[in-house]
């Protein structure tokens, strides 16, 4: 068994983990990343398409370029990283926490720290989670797995594909499969609007004449040993019209039906999760209900832009460093997700300092208004030209917006 000791440990070395570690080092504390894979960068390494880094690096980069540039900053900061280490358990040991990691190279690793940042990312929902009826033939993949196979291993999962779900990963994979030599026969979405970005609808579907079936339920997957077709039926006025169902022949189905934050380990530590995000509840500093345990990136809530992941994780890292130094937060105010708001992260704000929140809306609308209300009094109102559930919205709150907040005050964020 190998024993290590640091001020802080970060679990996961994706964009969030590296950004958090950078800030902890910048505050003069020692920090280690424990990462399961044999490289830093996380999911970014399989996202070889363009569209990352416009905010963080002021340039449009591919996923691997973004990861490598973050890694250069991380290496220069003097933080350590142990690769090929899976963290299995975290124990509370008085004023310290002890992480147990397992690696083929080092055996068991015992890491003693003052504080921990969770940055384990998320995993894909699979067929079991959405209950598509039908046979169980080979040829059904999650879109992210297919992305890894095509981009990193050079293996094309099939020749004729149907994609279920119109999230960004599915759209990106529609283009990738087409470029790699397969034919994509359609993208099927149960909702009346696509769940991915418009930019991806245009450049990944329209460019390749791939049909998008909105308001369609997947009623079955058919085949013997291998997938032979997918059956879909339109939804009209809220009812599935089974009599109008039709089959699309294909040998491959890609599922792009959402991501779930990876919180098995967090739950073991006693971290409580918000059912709206499946990520931890946190206070304004991104600290969970367990003192000294912070969270950022996709493990906290699923992001669509890596630039926001990095920004959020920097704040978590800086707050973790302040906590280690014993700088407590002042008063905290609860944030309520008001009309048309699915959730906010974090779910608390500190009235003495500037705050930034990310939120997702439940509706698609042009010319919307975002309202911040303190005990039913509007303290901030902003016009939003266009909002949709797939695009995260950020809100910055000034201490003056929160002046006059009492101990039981509630801050509500609404979209009208």
């Amino acid at each position: 068994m190998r024993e290590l000791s640091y001020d802080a440990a970060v679990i996961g070395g994706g964009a969030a983990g590296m950004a958090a570690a950078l800030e902890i080092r910048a505050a003069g504390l020692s920090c280690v990343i424990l990462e399961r894979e044999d490289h830093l960068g996380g999911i970014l390494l399989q996202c070889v398409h363009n569209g990352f880094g416009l905010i963080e690096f002021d340039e449009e980069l591919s996923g691997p370029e973004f990861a490598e540039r973050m890694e250069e900053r991380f290496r220069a900061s003097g933080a350590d990283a142990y690769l090929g280490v899976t963290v299995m358990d975290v124990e509370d040991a008085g004023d310290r926490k002890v992480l147990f990691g397992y690696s083929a190279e080092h055996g068991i690793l015992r890491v003693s720290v003052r504080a921990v940042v969770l940055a384990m990312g998320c995993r894909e929902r699979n067929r079991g989670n959405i209950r598509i009826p039908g046979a169980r033939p080979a040829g059904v993949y999650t879109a992210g797995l297919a992305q890894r196979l095509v981009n990193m291993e050079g293996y094309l999962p099939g020749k004729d594909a149907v994609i279920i779900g119109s999230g960004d990963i599915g759209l990106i994979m529609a283009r990738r499969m087409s470029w790699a030599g397969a034919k994509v026969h359609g993208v099927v979405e149960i909702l009346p609007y696509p769940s991915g970005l418009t930019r991806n609808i245009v450049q990944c579907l329209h460019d390749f004449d791939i049909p998008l079936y909105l308001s369609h339920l997947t009623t079955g997957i058919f085949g013997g040993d291998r997938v032979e077709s997918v059956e879909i039926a339109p939804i009209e006025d809220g009812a599935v019209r089974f009599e109008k169902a039709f089959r699309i022949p294909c040998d491959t189905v890609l599922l792009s039906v959402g991501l779930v934050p990876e919180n098995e380990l967090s739950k073991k530590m006693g971290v409580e999760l918000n059912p709206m995000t499946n990520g931890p509840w946190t206070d304004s500093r991104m600290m969970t209900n367990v003192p000294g345990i912070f969270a950022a990136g996709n493990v906290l809530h699923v992001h669509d832009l890596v630039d926001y992941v990095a920004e959020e994780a920097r704040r978590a890292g800086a707050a973790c460093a302040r906590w280690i130094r014993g700088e407590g937060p002042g008063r905290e105010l609860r944030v309520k997700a008001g009309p048309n708001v699915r959730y906010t992260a974090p779910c608390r704000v500190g009235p003495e300092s500037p705050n930034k929140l990310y939120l997702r809306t439940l509706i698609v609308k042009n010319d919307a208004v975002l309202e911040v209300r303190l005990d039913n009094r509007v303290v901030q109102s902003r016009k939003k030209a266009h909002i949709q559930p797939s695009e995260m919205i950020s809100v910055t709150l000034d201490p003056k917006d929160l002046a006059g907040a009492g101990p039981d005050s509630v801050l509500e964020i609404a979209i009208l």
Partner: protein
Amino acid sequence: MAEQLICITCPLGCRLEVERLPAGGLSVSGNRCTRGARYAEEELLAPKRVVTATCRALPEDRCRVPVRTAAPFPKEKAGDLIRLLYSLEVRLPVRRGDVLVPDALGTGIPVIATRTLD
């Protein structure tokens, strides 16, 4: 006949109607700002995309090398470029930014590696 486009310059996603004028040039409607007209012009007259792919690495048991065009590339040649990139073999080591194809299909646009692999 009018052509339909969705402007992707910003998240508003204006639905544009574009007509090619007999005298040359375009007439654009449906855009809420001037960027929409510029987008329509570029999309209809000279559409471009950043093309990305991964190439086989040598020695063969290694992870593939991700690549992209260093600048947006003419869309009508993207299919040909993709075929070229998927048949390319790259001997390791390679550094991020290394030029793998100096002048892709005579456009003057290079193709670069986007990851360092030793």
